[in-house]
């Protein structure tokens, strides 16, 4: 019975929407997502048309022979998707995973960057 339960749990990990910051800077958008416990190999970023989909799996190493005194987090899945507009230069999206934070940089397309219009004296 317990082993069956354990199997069922292994299949359906709890799913969370990761905490996300979206910051606009002059050069583009920075998206930061908290994903503690996610290794690079367990992270998938998909860009389909206008949808940027991020899914990841956090795995915590199981320790043998220990008793768990107090648990507040565990293995889980993170999923979240964003819609991006034409302002973003899709070819140059960069992503890096460091210290459990996924950082994505979405540069603005050249045509969307603010520019000064010079006025010619007539």
């Amino acid at each position, binding site marked *: 019975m317990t082993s069956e339960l354990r199997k069922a*749990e292994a299949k359906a990990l709890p799913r969370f929407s990761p905490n996300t910051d*979206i910051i606009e800077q002059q050069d583009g958008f920075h998206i*930061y997502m908290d994903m503690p416990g996610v290794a690079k190999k367990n992270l998938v970023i998909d860009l389909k048309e206008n949808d940027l989909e991020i899914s990841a799996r956090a795995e915590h190493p199981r320790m043998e022979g220990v008793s*768990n*005194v107090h*648990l*507040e987090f565990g293995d*889980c899945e993170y999923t979240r998707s964003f819609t991006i507009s034409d302002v973003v230069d899709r070819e140059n999206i960069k992503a890096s995973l460091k210290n459990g934070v996924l950082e994505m940089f979405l540069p603005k397309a050249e045509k969307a960057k603010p520019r000064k219009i010079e006025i010619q004296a007539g």
Partner: protein
Amino acid sequence: MVIDFSSFYNLPRELDRFFDETWRPSTISQRRNAYPPVNISEDKTNIYVFSEIPGVEIEDIDITLSDGSLVIKGNRKHGTGSYYRQERPTGLFQRVVNLNVSINPDKVSAKIKDGILEIVIPKADEAVPRKISIKAQ
């Protein structure tokens, strides 16, 4: 608006969050009401404390052992620019873990990987359970 979030009050997400918070998986014994969340395990010789602290370098985390309690302190910095969305917690945090056994404070080790802080605290010799062999007469 450049990134489209469908609606300002993102109701489906709020509902999701509500259910996330209410029905924690059965393996999780306590609700997450303090930051950062910690997991505590022990075996015969060590106490293991794990904590989810993403985006913070080990140098910026202050771990102190005092009088039977472990204190994890740190600061989460935030970026600059105009925020479209801010959900990640920022600022100073502190969490106190009470240890009810005597420990060996000189051999505590800590490391951080993928945003998970791992602290290994060896128990003091007198706290390690010992088998006493009884001789049959």
